[in-house]
């Protein structure tokens, strides 16, 4: 049985937590931009968290379901209807055969994630279902979803009725036109002039329209290095902030290349990457300095929190089943 794409939306791709293990082959990691929202969406439909979701951008797709299942939409504040009746985000949604889920414009934030029970089924390519548009591999034939595309998914029957969702406070990172993002000094931080170091933390940087899944190109006070030391390309990762000769920083995102040769002024702490992923062109980023020790503590804390969310949602499911 199938789920048919009636409208692909602005940019909808299949993504999981990334194609790790092949960076030595020059293959980008890709994967979801906002791992928090994608994992929570998966938990809400009873998944483990690392299954593939549909990453939607700005305006979402319209999907026709010929199956019984359960879905959840998390992330940016998208206007969302089921058979033309508004439905809420951040909670499980029962789907009956014949239902049409339409995801409209995003009012706050930028990206959302549609999870389905069991995960979106596309072939694994190099151990991942993530779409890599540059290499044209993974996801749905290596490209964004288009009208007429079909997914084959199993029916998930015997579902209890549900009346619960993720509390409001956990979604607060989506909101705001100015976003504070914590960073740690990068490997080449010392190469920058004292004025540039100061400006990097004291001034705001605008997300420009040439930002995409590969990188966020920011615009603000020009950043300069003291000595133009020739750099040898080295590994870069999600959240690495490079400064090319233009002096305008680029934050590397999910579809980044594996290596880079520009000075790295800073590294975005992993737990703040979802905040950045939800910033849209025209919005402003304020970088705030922190330490590696703190970044590591936040990382471990976030993983413990994710385990708690998973347990809590599992219990909700158990209760709902018992009550039915």
């Amino acid at each position, binding site marked *: 049985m199938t789920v048919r794409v009636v409208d692909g939306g602005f940019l909808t791709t299949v993504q999981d937590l990334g194609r790790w293990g092949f960076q030595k082959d*020059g293959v980008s990691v890709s994967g979801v931009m906002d791992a928090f929202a994608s994992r929570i969406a998966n938990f809400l439909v009873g998944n483990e968290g690392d299954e593939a979701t549909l990453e939607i951008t700005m305006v979402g797709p319209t999907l026709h379901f010929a199956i019984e299942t359960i879905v959840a939409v998390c992330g940016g504040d998208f206007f969302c209807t089921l058979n033309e009746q508004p439905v809420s985000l951040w909670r499980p949604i029962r789907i009956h055969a014949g239902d049409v889920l339409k995801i409209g414009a995003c009012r706050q934030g930028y990206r959302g994630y549609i999870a389905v029970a069991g995960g979106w089924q596309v072939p694994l*390519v190099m151990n991942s279902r993530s779409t890599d548009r540059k*290499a044209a591999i993974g996801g749905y034939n290596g490209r964004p979803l288009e009208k007429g595309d079909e997914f084959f998914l199993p029916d998930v029957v015997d579902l209890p009725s549900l009346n619960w969702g993720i509390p409001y406070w956990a979604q607060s990172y989506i909101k705001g036109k100015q976003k504070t993002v914590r960073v740690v000094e990068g*490997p080449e931080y010392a190469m920058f002039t004292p004025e540039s170091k100061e400006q990097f933390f004291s001034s705001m940087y605008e997300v420009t329209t040439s930002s995409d899944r590969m990188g966020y190109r920011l615009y603000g006070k020009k950043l300069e290095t003291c000595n133009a030391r020739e750099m040898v390309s*080295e590994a870069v*990762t999600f959240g690495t902030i490079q400064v090319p000769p233009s002096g305008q920083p680029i934050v590397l995102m999910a579809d980044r290349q594996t290596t880079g040769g520009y000075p790295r002024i800073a*590294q975005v*702490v992993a737990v703040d990457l979802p905040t950045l992923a939800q910033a849209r062109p025209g919005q402003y980023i304020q970088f705030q300095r922190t330490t590696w020790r703190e970044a590591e503590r936040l990382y*471990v804390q976030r993983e413990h929190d994710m385990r708690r969310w998973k347990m809590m949602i599992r219990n909700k499911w158990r209760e709902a089943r018992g009550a039915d």
Partner: protein
Amino acid sequence: MIFPLSEYALTVRFSDEMNEEVNDNAHQFARWLEKQSIKGIVEVVPTFSSVTIYYDPLVLGTYEQVRNQTKRWLEQMEETIQPKARTIVIPVCYGGEFGPDLPEVARYHGISEEEVVRLHAEARYKVYMIGFAPGFAYLGGLPLELATPRRATPRRVVPAGSVGIAGGQTGIYPLATPGGWQIIGRTPLSLFRPTHRQPSLLCAGDIVRFRPMTEKEYRMWKNDDGSCR
């Protein structure tokens, strides 16, 4: 020098400079680490003069702990004998429709097309690193006599397998992409094989040699699966 790249990655830089020996150290460490199959290591990425280790902090611990562990790994590796580098021969059909810029490269240097091919195919190249694109190898060892500036106007599409020269570098396009390199030939081999256990044909540290082939051989080869191992 060891430094953190993120909460889940650290880089071991063998030197700020890049030379053959430093590059060898980086590849050897990366290969040795991979062979150990250490639980908690997600992947190992060698570059020109460094190795980045991606790890799971919930398994291997904090940066401090992983850094100390890395120092022990470096010591352990030194006690083991390193395997010799692999040599990979890449057949190339030079000139003609596959190498449209061969005449230009020859003219630029004031030598014959045959001489360009001879120089290019006689040299021994080393894969300094893989990066930029899936399966793209940064090769060292292009004879100085062949260094040629990029084309004034880049091509909208350069077919996969194209062998080109840009400045002092030579390389092979793994995927069809736009590009400004001087294209002197094409190989029937697939440099990037997504369904393969080892998707990139070339690995950091490999030795590469080019072997001229005729257009007829190229066409016959193209019917095979493109694998040369």
